[in-house]
């Protein structure tokens, strides 16, 4: 069976460039699973978890916005930040959440900060 190739790039570096069997990414409105043979797709990512299954192991990343592009069994994820699940800085995320919730004005930036922090905390807890 055809296999996926999963590429994760941030502006600073290429985080992952390896084959995969199944990829799950968080889109703006929920999770999307990508199996080999998926139709071409360009999607906008949200803040949340990305899982890459290859063989027996599953790698988990926290990703922050960006895009996913699927074409020809190549999944490219372009994101501002990609952090391995066990490297999430819980203290920083908690602090971001606290300062954001303390803000009075309900700006989109505040909401984004809250969503980012919550997604990170959730992932860290699950790990």
């Amino acid at each position: 069976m055809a296999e996926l190739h999963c590429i994760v790039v941030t502006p600073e570096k290429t985080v992952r460039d390896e084959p995969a069997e199944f990829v799950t990414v968080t889109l703006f409105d929920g999770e999307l699973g990508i199996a080999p043979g998926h139709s071409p797709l360009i999607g906008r990512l949200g803040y949340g978890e990305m899982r890459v299954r290859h063989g027996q192991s599953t790698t988990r990343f926290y990703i922050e916005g960006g895009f996913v592009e699927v074409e020809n069994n190549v999944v490219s994820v372009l994101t501002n930040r990609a952090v391995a699940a066990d490297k999430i800085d819980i203290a920083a995320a908690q602090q971001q959440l606290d300062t954001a919730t303390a803000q009075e004005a309900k700006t989109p930036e505040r909401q984004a900060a809250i969503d980012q922090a919550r997604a990170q905390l959730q992932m860290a807890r699950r790990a």
Partner: protein
Amino acid sequence: MAKARALDRRRKSIRSIRKITRTMELISTARFRKAMDRAVAASAYTKRIMSLVGHLSTAGLEVHHPLLEPHAETSRAGLLVISANRGLCGGYNSSIMRQGFAQYKLLKADVPNVSLEIVGKRGISAFRFRKYEIAERFTHFEDKPTFAEVEVLANRYLELYRTGKLDRLDVVYTKFESLGRQRAVVETLLPLGQLESAPAGTKGGSREDSHVQYELLPTAASIVDEVVPASFKVKLFKCFLDAAVSEQIARRVAMKNATENAGEMIGSLSIAYNRARQSQITGELLEIIGGAEALNK
């Protein structure tokens, strides 16, 4: 004796200078490699963004976004000058300054309000010396600018542009063209103008059909909304990375020359020292012989 000793002292001090410049050369070589690796890593993202834009446009999508359109009237411009925090890097800072001053004058002639923002201590002091008003100054960008740091700046520009407080943004930085060639250039980042896109079919040879139907989630407009700021950010980030790489190259070249010059100087001083010492010895010998002759009489 005095002259020979003075020469020897000078030779010693030049030796220690050579040691220092040699070390600095090695350090900047190492830093340059790291900066270069980062720049190469970053270009993967740029390439993918470009191919994404290419795919969007081949999908028959018109890319429209307020960031791409110039404002009707340009009354407020920003000029960002990226210089180094440290000197001793040859003509790096001075060529940036030359470009910066010229561009500032040019903007001043066209646009009533120009706000000057400068990265790097060298640039700040040069502009302050000429009594220009500096709106913002940044010194926290070292040889490893991170995307998170640059993003803060980029978000501020985007906000200003969106709210109409900024109509144009020019960046003066040193563009890395090749290992042997870096140039101080001026680039207009806002309005973005046309998004750069990789021509269809460049990504691998496997794509013979450029008319792949993409499923766009959620909508094309929403994706464009995200692509345009992302490509602005990555462009700005690239400016910083290029500047960092070029600075290290400039420093390495400058230090290499300094080391070579010190070596030459040590050579010529050694010759002068040996001559002085020899003539001194000859003089002393003549005196001794003269003295002995006088005693024998």
